């Protein structure tokens, strides 16, 4: 398999070319499945080719041609995936759009991309697009997959998916040379064409249309498919949002180059059930999904009988001790191996089956930090869960962990053929095969995103760990520098502090200062409990926060934090030298937190400017008056004398490592 892929390199530079190849080499193997009417309907590669051909010729007759944009909106449905390949076979550019985007956002994307056609799943999407049709003058035709509810609609500019395919079939029947001409068109297509345009989700400002070339997309997908040895025997459950780069890459792109089988769930609510029925070999999920799985397992085990609970606890303990070592092929004592083998029969295999993870060969998670315990739990069951780091601009992979070199706190070394560099400001820069060709109609922004020598700025700050794995620490714009030049990553420091249950919130300062310092909010519940157990009386949050013994306890936490920071060569320079425990809880009602409970750093800095000054001018206490809002909306003033304490710092461990890693 790998050999054929390698031999094909160079000539195969678009996905439709792979479609023709797969229909030849895997003609009878399943390419696509969809659970519909309670049954897994399936299509072989040969059948999929016929579906796509009929669609493409129908779209061509409708006027779709080279360079046109065609929007794809909806859930994971075979017909929407076929639209990608059908459009690409004509040189048109598919533009997948988030189906749950609000009308305003969708109107912007469709208009910005200048789409002429839109293939949508159902009435909901038709309604949404028609609600702003006056703002998308380029749009000529909406094509819908599910006709339900559309009977009474004015049919001008509205066509059923099946009608397009029937038209394509009729043309094929009427003209014997048409099929061959379509194939010829695919074979002659250039890899420089844009394969897909993926709009960023737009969490920071307007969505941008990321253009990916066919050659780039195919090369990137081929690299990672080889990396994980994906083949036509693999299968995936396509349940991620269609418009997200992850779905397009992991399912569509890797699917076409390796010939694996894509399975579309019955509906968003049935994904867990469908996962069990399919038992995919390759799986991706963000950390919160793994967290949800673990929670459901824990809850169900609590309801289980005594014997089952004991067995579960015992063998999960065995898995914790030996599971990961066995997975990675490290030496394990014979007794451990025997216990693990027994546990596999009694617990791990049935558990994996319930979760739908029985056949997993490779699983990935990405997007946010995953807890060590959570990560280890799944790995100890024998699931090869790894981490990757990617971006739409990279056509997904920037770094990826190798089998056997997996850690929870890093995202792995550079993916195959990807070059990574850390800029002087600590920002991660990369150059990769699948790298984007630019933002559509936004040359300025494209230029801003690229360095002079053609690297892409990720906007994330990170560093290489001692073993060459990349660690992402924060958004680059939040990362600053101390006057000594040492890197100051506030979120990293705050997250390390918040790891302690006594600390609810922390705000670190240090950009442009001599050293790092922090405000700390105690966790009233945890510290309150502790106070009760230790016979410490207090009347208010303020009193507890200012209690000398609370200060002692927090000082130990800060000390521990500094010790941890000192072990990170890049972070060691920004250990916390001075800290204070705030006299009031940071609160969204006072504007100190956002409604999603994230610290509004700039606002806090302004509001507590006298305290920040006190952190840096060496004073040991400071009197402040702060206005606060009570729960009933009344405003009041808190007066307090806040103590400021020095913390111990540690010498950095091996400071020379950054050059070595590069």
């Amino acid at each position, binding site marked *: 398999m790998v050999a054929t892929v390698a031999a094909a390199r160079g000539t195969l530079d678009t996905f439709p070319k792979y479609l023709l190849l797969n229909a030849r080499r895997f003609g009878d193997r399943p390419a696509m499945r969809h659970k519909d*009417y309670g049954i897994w*309907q399936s299509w*072989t590669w040969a059948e999929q080719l016929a579906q796509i051909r009929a669609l493409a010729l129908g779209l061509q007759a409708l006027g779709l041609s080279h360079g046109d944009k065609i929007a794809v909106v909806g859930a994971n449905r075979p017909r929407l995936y076929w639209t990608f390949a059908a459009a690409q076979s004509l040189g048109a550019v598919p533009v997948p759009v988030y189906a749950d985007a609000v009308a305003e956002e969708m109107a912007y994307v469709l208009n910005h991309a200048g789409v002429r056609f839109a293939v949508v799943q159902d009435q909901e999407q038709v309604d949404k697009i028609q609600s702003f049709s006056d703002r998308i003058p380029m749009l000529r035709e909406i094509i819908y997959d599910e006709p339900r509810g559309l009977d009474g609609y004015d049919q001008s500019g509205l066509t059923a998916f099946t009608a397009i395919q029937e038209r394509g079939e009729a043309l094929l029947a009427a003209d014997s040379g048409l099929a061959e001409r379509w194939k010829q068109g695919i074979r002659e297509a250039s890899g420089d064409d844009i394969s897909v345009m993926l709009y960023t989700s737009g969490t920071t400002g307007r969505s941008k249309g990321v253009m990916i070339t066919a050659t780039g997309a195919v090369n990137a997908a081929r690299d990672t498919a080889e990396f994980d040895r994906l083949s036509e025997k693999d299968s995936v459950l396509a349940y991620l949002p269609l418009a997200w780069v992850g779905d397009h890459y992991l399912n569509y792109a890797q699917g076409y180059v390796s010939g694996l089988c894509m399975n579309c769930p019955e509906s968003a609510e*049935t994904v867990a059930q469908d996962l069990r029925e399919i038992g995919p070999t390759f799986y991706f999920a963000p950390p919160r999904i793994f967290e949800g799985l673990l929670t459901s397992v824990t809850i169900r085990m609590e309801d289980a009988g005594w014997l089952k609970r004991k067995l579960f606890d015992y063998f999960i303990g065995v898995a914790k001790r030996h599971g990961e070592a066995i997975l990675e092929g490290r030496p394990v004592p014979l007794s451990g191996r025997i216990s693990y083998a027994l546990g596999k029969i009694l617990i791990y295999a049935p558990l994996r089956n319930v979760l739908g993870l029985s056949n997993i060969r490779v699983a990935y998670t990405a997007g946010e930090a995953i807890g060590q315990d959570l990560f280890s739990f799944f790995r100890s069951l024998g699931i090869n869960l790894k981490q990757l780091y990617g971006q739409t601009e990279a056509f997904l992979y920037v770094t990826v962990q190798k089998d056997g070199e997996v850690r929870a706190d890093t995202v792995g070394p550079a993916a195959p053929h990807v070059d990574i560099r850390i800029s002087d400001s600590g920002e991660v820069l990369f150059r990769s095969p699948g790298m984007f060709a630019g933002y559509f109609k936004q040359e300025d922004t494209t230029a801003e995103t690229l360095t002079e020598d053609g690297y892409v700025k990720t906007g994330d700050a990170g560093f290489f760990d001692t073993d060459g794995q990349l660690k992402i620490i924060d958004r680059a714009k939040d990362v600053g520098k101390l006057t000594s030049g040492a890197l100051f990553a506030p979120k990293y420091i705050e997250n390390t502090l918040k790891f302690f249950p006594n600390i609810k919130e922390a705000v670190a300062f240090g950009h442009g200062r001599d050293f790092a310092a922090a405000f700390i909010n105690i966790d009233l519940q945890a510290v309150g409990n502790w106070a009760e157990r230790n016979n410490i009386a207090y009347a208010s949050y303020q009193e507890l926060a200012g209690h000398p013994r609370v200060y002692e306890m927090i000082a130990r936490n800060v000390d521990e934090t500094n010790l941890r920071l000192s072990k990170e060569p890049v972070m060691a320079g920004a250990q916390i030298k001075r800290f204070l425990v705030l006299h009031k809880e940071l609160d969204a009602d006072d504007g100190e937190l956002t409604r999603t409970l994230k610290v509004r750093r700039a606002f806090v800095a302004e509001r507590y400017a006298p305290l920040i000054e006190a952190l840096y001018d060496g004073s040991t206490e400071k009197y402040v008056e702060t206005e606060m809002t009570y729960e009933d909306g009344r405003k009041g003033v808190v007066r307090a004398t806040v103590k400021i304490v020095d913390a111990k710092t540690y010498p950095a461990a091996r400071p020379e490592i950054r050059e070595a890693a590069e």
Partner: protein
Amino acid sequence: MNARPEPVKLAIVDDGIPMGGLLMEVKNVSLRFGGVKAITDISFDVKKGEIRAIIGPNGAGKTSMLNVINGFYTPQEGTIVFRGQERRAMKPHHAVRQGIARTFQNVALFKGMSTLDNIMAGRSVMMHRSLFWQMLWHGPALKEEIEHREKVEEIIDFLEIQHIRRTPVGKLPYGLQKRVELGRALAMEPSLLLLDEPMAGMNLEEKEDMSRFIIDVNRQRGTTIALIEHDMGVVMDLSDRVVVLDYGKKIADGTPDAVKSNQDVIDAYLGVAH
């Protein structure tokens, strides 16, 4: 070429009556329980393809009326003409055979059975193989079962309840149970569907969903619907014609707008001294 089987469409029962023709006529029906007059001399009709609502304050005789239509009660006076056939006494299962299906004010499902099995139960009247074949679970009985399952899957798809296909209905929230019950009634492929307070006890979102399904059943399948409902907003939006009952008597009959402005109806709902 197409590997995907086209959806099996549930047949709209062809009873030879054109859309808008008379499907059912209730003539001078009276129902008494001992000395209590539940329904007094009520007449109205249901046309094919319409949504007909029966409304009225508590104790007006709405559910009694529905029970008369579906054969659970036999009226002392009056007749019912359904699909051109006049009848007075009949059992509920005869009503089902004739093409009348209903849902209940309080959900009446088999709580321990799955959604799928509950809806399959709705098709049992249409299974013709003998007990012998059904127990053997082979040959013609299996073939028949598969045919019915296909139709049930079509209903599951229609009502968007794929995710609870295997869930025992007793575990489902109330709104979904109501939907399953509607599914079971639809499985009988009725020409007249009776809904007894389909929105009772639902929150706003569940009501909106249910309204949409009722409209879809009516528009896409051409099923005639007679419904009882308390929520006036829902009734006025959904139905084509409304009958208003009060103390067992018919006080108004007409389009929602006409009924809304009828002084007797306003009095009955707002309450005046009788």
